[in-house]
C-alpha cells in the first residue's frame, strides 16, 4: 500500500478556499457518517476524514490538485447505492461526492443525446427525456436513487440489458477530471470514431479509479412501442429456466426477463403490502416485458411467449397491460432488494453472478448446492435472460454481523469459483469495489491484472484515486 497523507487543518483550509465552506464537511460526525458506507451495508463502513461536494468541474479539478499535492486518497461517490463498496473510503481521506452536480444540461433531439452532470438521478433523466419523446435505455433496478455518474462508473446493467445493453452502450461522451486535476474530454455527440484505444470505454466501469466524471453525454433511443408484462408462475425453478432460452430465441421483442424466487417474493410482497397470484404454491416467477408496434403485434407476441411458458410447465401466465397492473408487478420486482433488507438487515445484496444462458440451469443448481454447504438460506433473483443471477444470502440467526461480513464474502468467493468453472463470471453489473476484489482476482490471469495495473498507473501514478478498488494495490 502506498503511504498516504493525512488531512490537516491547513489542507482543510485550502479545500475550503478552493470550493467554498458550504461544500466541505469536516469534523461534523453525523454529517460525515452519511458518507461512510454504501448499500453493501453498514458492516463494511469506513469513515472519511473529510467530504467535499464540488458544484462544478473546476471545483473537482481544484480538489484533485490539492489531493495530488498532499497525496490524499480520494473516493468519488455517487448516490451511495452501490453494492460492492466502491464508494467506501477504505483509506479515509477525501470523499468526493458529486451530489451537487445534478443538472440536466441539454436534451438535443437532432443528435439524439442528452448532456448531463454526473449527479443526476437516473430516473430524473429517464422522465425528462420521455417528455421530449425519447428513451434513456439505462435501467438499473436502483434507477430511482442511483446517479448517472455511478451508473457509468460501474457500467450498470439492470432490467433492460437483454434489449438495450449495459450502460457502456449508452454513453457517447464523458468529461473527466484526472487525478492531477487536468480535464479530459472523451467522445462527444458523434457516433463514429476509429482513432486509437478507446479511453472513453476504459473510463466506463472503472469505478472512479482513473478519473472523476464531471459530464456525461448519453445516447437516446426512440420511445418503444406498446408494452405488456407477463407474469408466469412456476412450480419449479428448473421449469422456469428452461423457458428463458426459448423466449429469447422466439423472435419476440423482449425488453426485460426477470427471475424472482418464492423466498424473495414472499418477503417483498409482505414489505410492499400486496400479493401475487399463485403465491402459495409457486416456486418462482418469471416477469417478461414485451414490446410490439401495435395491438395486434403485441397480442400475437404475448400469446406466443405465454404459450411457451405454459408448455414448459408454468401453472399460469398473467397478462398485465394496464398501468396499474404493470406497476403492481414491477413494484414487487423493484423492491426485492429493499424487501430482503426488511426481512434481514444483514442480508448480502452483493452477489452478482453471470453465466452463458446455456449453463444458467447448472448455475442455479450450484447456488443451491453451495448455499447448503455453507448452511445459508439464499434467495435467488436476477436478470435471467442475461444469465445474471443475484443470490442473496441471509445471515444465520446465531452469527454476529461482524462474522457474517467475512463469512458471506467467503461464501461468495466459493460461489464465484464455481461460476467461473461453468464459464461464468463473479460480477455482472454491480462492480468490483473492494468487497468482490479478493474473490475476483482469483478469476483473472496475471497478464490481465498486470495490464489493469499499468493502465491505472498511467492515469493515476500516485494511486490516490479510489485506491484498493477494482484492482489490487501495490
Amino acid at each position, binding site marked *: 500500500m502506498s503511504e498516504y497523507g493525512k488531512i490537516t487543518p491547513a489542507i482543510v483550509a485550502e479545500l475550503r478556499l478552493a470550493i467554498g465552506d458550504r461544500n466541505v464537511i469536516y469534523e461534523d460526525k453525523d454529517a460525515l457518517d452519511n458518507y461512510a458506507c454504501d448499500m453493501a451495508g453498514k458492516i463494511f463502513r469506513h469513515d472519511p476524514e473529510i467530504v467535499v461536494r464540488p458544484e*462544478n468541474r473546476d471545483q473537482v479539478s481544484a480538489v484533485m490538485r490539492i489531493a495530488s499535492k498532499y497525496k490524499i486518497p480520494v473516493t468519488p461517490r455517487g448516490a451511495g447505492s452501490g453494492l460492492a463498496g466502491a464508494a467506501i473510503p477504505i483509506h479515509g481521506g477525501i470523499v468526493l461526492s458529486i451530489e451537487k452536480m445534478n443538472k440536466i444540461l441539454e436534451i438535443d433531439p437532432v443528435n439524439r443525446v442528452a448532456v448531463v452532470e454526473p449527479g443526476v438521478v437516473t430516473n430524473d433523466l429517464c422522465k425528462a427525456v420521455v417528455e421530449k419523446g425519447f428513451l434513456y435505455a439505462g435501467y438499473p433496478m436502483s434507477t430511482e436513487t442511483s446517479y448517472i455518474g455511478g451508473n457509468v462508473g460501474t457500467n450498470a446493467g439492470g432490467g433492460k440489458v437483454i434489449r438495450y445493453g449495459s450502460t457502456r452502450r449508452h454513453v457517447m461522451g464523458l468529461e473527466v477530471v484526472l487525478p492531477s486535476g487536468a480535464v479530459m474530454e472523451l467522445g462527444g455527440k458523434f457516433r463514429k470514431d476509429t482513432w486509437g484505444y478507446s479511453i472513453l470505454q476504459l473510463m466506463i466501469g472503472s469505478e472512479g479509479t482513473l478519473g472523476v466524471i464531471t459530464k456525461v453525454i448519453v445516447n437516446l433511443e426512440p420511445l418503444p412501442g*406498446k408494452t405488456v408484462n407477463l407474469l408466469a408462475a412456476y412450480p419449479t425453478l428448473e421449469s422456469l429456466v428452461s423457458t428463458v432460452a426459448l423466449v429469447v430465441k422466439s423472435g419476440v421483442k423482449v425488453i426485460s426477463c426477470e427471475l424472482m424466487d418464492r423466498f424473495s417474493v414472499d418477503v417483498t410482497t409482505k414489505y410492499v403490502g400486496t400479493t401475487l397470484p399463485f403465491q402459495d404454491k409457486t416456486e418462482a416467477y418469471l416477469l417478461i416485458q414485451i414490446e410490439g408496434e401495435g395491438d395486434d403485434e403485441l*397480442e400475437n407476441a404475448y*400469446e406466443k411467449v405465454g404459450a411457451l411458458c405454459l408448455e414448459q410447465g408454468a401453472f399460469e401466465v*398473467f*397478462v398485465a397491460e394496464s398501468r*396499474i*397492473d404493470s406497476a403492481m408487478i414491477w413494484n414487487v420486482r423493484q423492491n426485492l432488494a429493499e424487501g430482503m433488507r426488511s426481512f434481514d438487515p444483514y442480508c448480502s445484496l452483493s452477489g452478482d453472478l453471470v453465466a452463458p444462458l446455456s449453463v444458467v440451469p447448472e448455475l442455479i443448481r450450484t447456488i443451491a448446492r453451495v448455499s447448503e454447504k455453507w448452511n445459508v438460506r439464499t434467495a435467488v433473483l436476477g436478470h435471467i435472460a442475461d444469465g445474471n443471477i443475484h443470490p442473496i444470502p441471509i445471515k444465520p440467526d446465531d452469527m454476529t454481523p461482524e462474522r457474517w461480513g467475512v463469512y458471506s464474502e467467503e461464501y461468495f468467493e466459493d460461489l464465484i469459483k464455481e461460476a467461473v468453472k461453468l464459464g461464468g463470471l463473479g460480477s455482472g453489473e454491480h462492480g468490483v469495489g473492494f468487497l468482490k476484489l479478493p474473490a475476483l482476482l482469483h478469476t483473472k490471469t496475471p497478464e490481465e491484472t498486470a495490464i489493469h495495473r499499468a493502465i491505472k498507473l498511467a492515469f493515476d501514478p500516485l494511486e490516490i484515486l479510489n485506491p484498493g478498488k477494482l484492482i489490487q494495490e501495490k
Partner: protein
Amino acid sequence: MSGLKKIAVLVKQVPATENVKINPETGVMMREGLSVEVNPLDLHAIEEAVRLKEKFPDILVTAVTMGPPSADKAVRYAIAMGCDEGVVLTDRAFAGSDTLATARALSAALKKLGSFDLILSGERATDGETGQVGPSVGSLLGLPVLTYVSKLSVGADKLDIERAVEGGHEKLSSPFPALAVVIKEINSPRLCTLGGKLKGRKSDIKILSFADLDIPKENVGLSGSPTKVVKVRYPQVTRKGKKLSAAEDFDGAVGELLKVLNDNRVEVNA
C-alpha cells in the same frame, strides 16, 4: 343458492393518463392519440361480478359499455377477467352524450338485453369524474340504487351490502333487482390470465345501435344532453415565482433573498 341469475357490469373506456386535456375551444375532452384502458374503478365492479360468478357458477355476467366501436376492447378486457359476454352500445347518434343522455341509452340497452338481477358499476370514471352514470341508470330503471358499496353478499332473495359513509359503514339489505355502485375498497381486481385474454380477444361482441333501442332521438347525443359546456378554463397560477441562483454569485443571491424577505416583511434572524 341465490336468486341471482344475471349480472350486468357497466364499464367505460378512458384515456390511460392522469392528465386529461380539454380542448379550450370546444370544451370537449381531447382523446386523440391517447392510449386507452378500462376505467380503473370499473375493474372493481368487474371483479365483484366475477367473484359472484365463481361462487354461483350459474350466473351469467354481461359487460356493457357505450362508446366508439373501438370500445369493444373494454368489454373484451372484462371477458378476460371472467365475464361471460360483452355488449357495446355504439352509434353516431350517441356522440356528445352527457351523463344523463348516456344513462338513458344504457338503461334502454339493459332493458332490451333482458332482466338483470344485479347491475354493478364503478364509483366514477377517471376522465369525467362525475360518478353520475351508474346511479342514473339505476334510477331510470326504477331500481334500488346502492352507492359506495364496500362489501356485498348475496342471499336467497336479497342483497346484503355495507356502504362507506362518513365516519363508518352502514349495513343495508335490498331486494333484487338492484344497482350497486362499488368503491375500490370492495376488492383487489385480479390480473387477467393468458387464457382469459385469449377468450376476450376471440369472443363475439354484441353491438347495439340507436335503432336497436326504444328511445326517442332527442333523448340522446348532444341534443339530448342538458349539460352544456360553455367554457373551459384552466386555473391560472397566480404566484410569481423567482429563482435565485447561488451557483455564480453566492453572496449576491443571499443578499437578494434577504431583500425579498425584507420587502415581504418576513423577519430573519441572522
